[in-house]
């Protein structure tokens, strides 16, 4: 029952006829649907799945630090900014060009995790 597709999915647009994965299924059926008065409804079944990490984005220092971390880890070798990096201090933590292990270790920023977890 897929919608008429213009060929296969591309990099910029992915099509799926049905949700796969818990988050997508929840998006469709949780708290979405006809509302039945409390008068007749005995119970909405509570489910432990709500302990799934449903991220609520709250502006906070932690959020800012995560953004900064992500920006600092960028490999900018394809942009002009990379040129400036190379001239000044040998580039970002993510770059690997022609750098000895010792040099790399010196510039390593402590406390930066490699956690690339993305919020959904």
């Amino acid at each position, binding site marked *: *029952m897929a*919608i008429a597709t*213009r060929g296969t999915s591309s990099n*910029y*647009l*992915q*099509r*799926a006829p*049905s*949700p796969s994965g*818990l988050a*997508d*299924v*929840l998006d*469709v*059926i*949780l*708290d*979405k*649907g*006809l*509302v*039945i*008065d409390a008068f*007749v409804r*005995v*119970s*909405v*079944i*509570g*489910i*432990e*799945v709500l302990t799934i990490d449903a*991220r609520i*984005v709250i*502006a906070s*220092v932690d959020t*800012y*630090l995560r*953004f*900064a971390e*992500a*920006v*600092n880890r*960028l490999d*900018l070798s394809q*942009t002009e*900014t990379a040129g*400036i*990096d190379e001239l000044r*201090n040998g580039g*970002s*933590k993510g770059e690997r060009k022609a750098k000895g292990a010792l040099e790399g270790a010196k*510039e390593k*920023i*402590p*406390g930066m995790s490699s956690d690339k977890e*993305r*919020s*959904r």
Partner: protein
Amino acid sequence: MAPSATTTGVYVYGVVRADELPAVSADGVGDSAVEVLERDGLAAIVSRLPDDFRVKRRDLNRHLQVLEEAFGETTVVPCAFGTVLASEADVETALLSQRRPELEAALDRLDGTVQLNVKAAYEPDELLRELVAKNPDVARLREDSIRLGDAGYPQRVRLGELVAGLLDERREEDAARILATLSGVAEDVAVDDPGEYDALKASFLVDRKQLDRFDARLEEVARSLQPVVRAEVIGPLPPTAFAGAAAAQ
């Protein structure tokens, strides 16, 4: 239909017209059978729950499968996951009979439509790279915080704050653009809270006859926003995001 002596309640998946009863082969929630209760030209798709019923993750999929099967054959007004009424009598009288006008209105409104869930998400590195390239403040703070290492904590906070603000602006623009492009070919739209790296998360109610146009416009706007944005569309889906609104009209 004599109620089972051990029934906890009646789980309701959704409402359809009684003269268009769908054949549902899927197992219901709690492995119970999927049945139909009729009254006054309407029918509720239900399962009688056993006493020892406890929700499992697979019940989420069951609920959706039942809806999808019914939706494949007829117009459905879906109920939210976890809707349980006390008894079959309650389903027939309090729901189907007493709320008949709303339910009929909802069915009429939803006839011939499908739901499409659209998510436009940012590729984080692409987005951040673009922010660095286009914002000298960001580039400068990035260099400073890298150079300063541990001592660059204030710079990192300031950098993150700046990026967060720019991302918010970008999200607003992109969401507005996508909505403007797609709303013209949709009957209705319901916008959800986007995730941190999402531009937009929304459900669209689309007339089946407009599906091709909707898809073409979505393709177009997604292509125009690449590579920073990557879009996904799921559907056609039963119109869960629009059942309440349809009934209220």
